[in-house]
């Protein structure tokens, strides 16, 4: 990545003039803390004593037997709050505190990033306001309540598609209005530089741990790592420390009701280059450049953009990006719950679904790591409704 925050040709800083000084300030502050051992130490302490890191790399005996390969789950579902999101929010909230910011704002889709921001804000004594699409506040009502319990204010977004994309729009409008005292805590590897780099760095703890754990258990790195991709933070987090190893990396996007129906969120598989939310990256857009509405059974993947580093990794063919459909995901949600006693988030179930669908690709000695980015408690009510359980 060069100085202007580019991953190959992707990335950059496409924001209105008012935000440029804030981005430059953030770049500078981030440079300072990466060179500061005290910051690293403070973050490690929060990770160990508060977030519950390291998370296990769990061998799935039942699933492995059934599919005929060696399957491990990287258990980000066990991070405090229920997903990998806290890895990033703790890092950024500590940074915001260092910068003397008085207030955190965030966007959220499924609510997991909102919850993780509320946790970090409560722990560090920073007030939190979370923008959440009105559609998502309804399908993830439990997470709205969790955020409120921890003192965050949830602001339903009623513009546009009323999902994650518009939540980011509103957060950006808030930031531009309160730029001097407010820290915008972005939840994925999207947005203008330095966010994609910074969020990747904070999430890389997933891959660093997984690498060590796999070497210990198997004596080598895995053959395949699979992760779901919405904005792409859990995927880049586990992929990044393995980029120079010889192994297959698979990013699974939300195929929704099928790519052919147009009702999906498969940005890398079905999109083309464009600019949204401050970065040049793949984008789901129409012939004229209007951003398209998206769909996914998983609110956290329901987004028309994707992190710029993923766009680079796609073009370089270093990572294989593919899709699974809503129905595959529901099947995988049931399968993992029943087989291993682990209920995955619908987002993470995309990665599980890929392995189930392509089990015949793996030999019995192949080591496959699935990044289980979050737990599925938040999704139980929606899945029950889809199953006709009331």
């Amino acid at each position, binding site marked *: 990545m060069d100085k*202007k925050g580019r991953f190959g040709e992707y990335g*950059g*800083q*496409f*924001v*209105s*003039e*008012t*935000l*440029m*000084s*804030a981005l*430059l300030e953030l770049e500078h502050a981030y440079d300072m803390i990466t060179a500061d051992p005290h910051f690293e130490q403070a973050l490690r302490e929060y990770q160990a004593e508060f977030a519950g890191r390291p998370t296990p790399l769990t061998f799935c005996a039942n699933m492995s037997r059934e599919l005929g390969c060696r399957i491990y789950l990287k258990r980000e579902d066990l991070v405090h709050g229920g997903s990998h999101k806290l890895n990033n929010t703790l890092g950024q909230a500590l940074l915001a505190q260092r910068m003397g910011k008085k207030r955190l704002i965030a966007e959220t889709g499924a609510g997991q990033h909102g919850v993780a921001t509320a946790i970090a804000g409560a722990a560090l004594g920073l007030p939190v306001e979370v923008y959440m699409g009105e559609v998502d506040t309804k399908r993830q009502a439990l997470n709205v309540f969790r955020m409120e319990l921890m003192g965050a204010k949830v602001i339903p977004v009623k*513009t*546009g598609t009323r999902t994650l*994309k*518009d939540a980011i*729009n509103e957060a*950006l*409008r808030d930031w*531009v*209005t*309160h*730029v*001097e005292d407010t820290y915008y805590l972005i939840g994925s590897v999207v947005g203008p530089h330095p966010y994609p780099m910074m969020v990747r760095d904070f999430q890389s703890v997933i891959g660093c741990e997984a690498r060590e754990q796999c070497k210990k258990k198997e004596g080598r790195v895995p053959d395949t790592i699979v992760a779901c991709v919405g904005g792409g933070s859990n995927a880049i987090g586990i992929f990044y420390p393995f980029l120079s190893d010889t192994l297959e990396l698979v990013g699974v996007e939300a195929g929704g009701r099928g790519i052919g129906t147009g009702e999906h969120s498969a940005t890398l598989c079905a999109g083309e*280059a*464009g*600019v*949204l*939310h*401050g970065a*040049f990256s793949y*984008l789901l*857009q129409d*012939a*004229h*450049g*209007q*951003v398209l509405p998206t769909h996914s059974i998983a609110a956290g993947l329901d987004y028309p953009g994707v992190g710029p580093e993923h766009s680079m990794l796609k073009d370089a063919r270093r990572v294989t990006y593919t899709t699974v459909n809503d129905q595959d995901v529901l099947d995988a949600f049931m399968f993992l719950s029943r087989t291993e006693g682990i209920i995955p988030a619908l987002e993470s179930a995309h990665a599980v679904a890929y392995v189930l669908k392509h089990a015949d690709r793996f030999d019995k000695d192949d080591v496959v790591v699935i990044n289980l980015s979050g737990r599925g408690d938040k999704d139980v009510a929606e899945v029950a409704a889809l199953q006709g359980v009331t």
Partner: protein
Amino acid sequence: MSRIDRVFQRNGQTTFIGFAVAGDPDRDTSARVAHALIDGGTDILELGVPFSDPVADGKTIQKADERAIAAGTTPDTVFSLVREIRAYSAVPIVLLTYYNMVYRRGVERFYREAHEAGVDGILIADMPVEESAEVVEIARTYEIDPIFLVTRTTSPERMDEIVRRARGFLYLVSVLGVTGARDRVPDEALALLHRVRTHTALPLALGFGISAPEHVKTCAEAGADGVIVGSAIVSIVEKNAGNIPLMEQELKRYVARMKAAGVRDR
């Protein structure tokens, strides 16, 4: 000297830059809006290219963008509107857009078609000077003035860089925030005006939140060369969508009142 330069050379009054979203509420009404703004005395017409995610804009203009997109407005529609307005008047026309609309069409093609239609300037709301090298060069090729934003948070070093690339005028953002009518012109806006003045001889136009004649008067007295009014105009269009002759009348009256407030005492 560009058409925009010539407008600012006229003495005795503050240049009135009126904004409407192209295609709001539909193409033909939008043409009548533009004509009414010109008839009322608009010195420079600014047309918004509607975009699905206008993050620099407040509610009023977001809704106008949504109406225009729902009515089928595309960049083709915008360029055809510009041609129609150009046939009606020689008033300079500036497009306000977001970068994805330009990138998607192809930067070269967008500027060429804009030039052929009669566009004089283009402002890309989400393109800071750091990302603008290619666009500025192509703009120059097609004799289109690249318009840049300057805000209270713009550092002196960056302001010098902006001033080096900008042509036509500088768009001074009067407040931290998004577009939308506000009660008064904040003191910080006037302070910004004085600060930018020490960096450039380019004409300076203040925008964001300017909606009433007394705002224009304040800006004029502080030495602004122009004012940019958007949301207040878009609100008139929205409110009178059911009665187009009344809409035209209201627009003309509004622009005339705002213009009158900008006459400088000499």
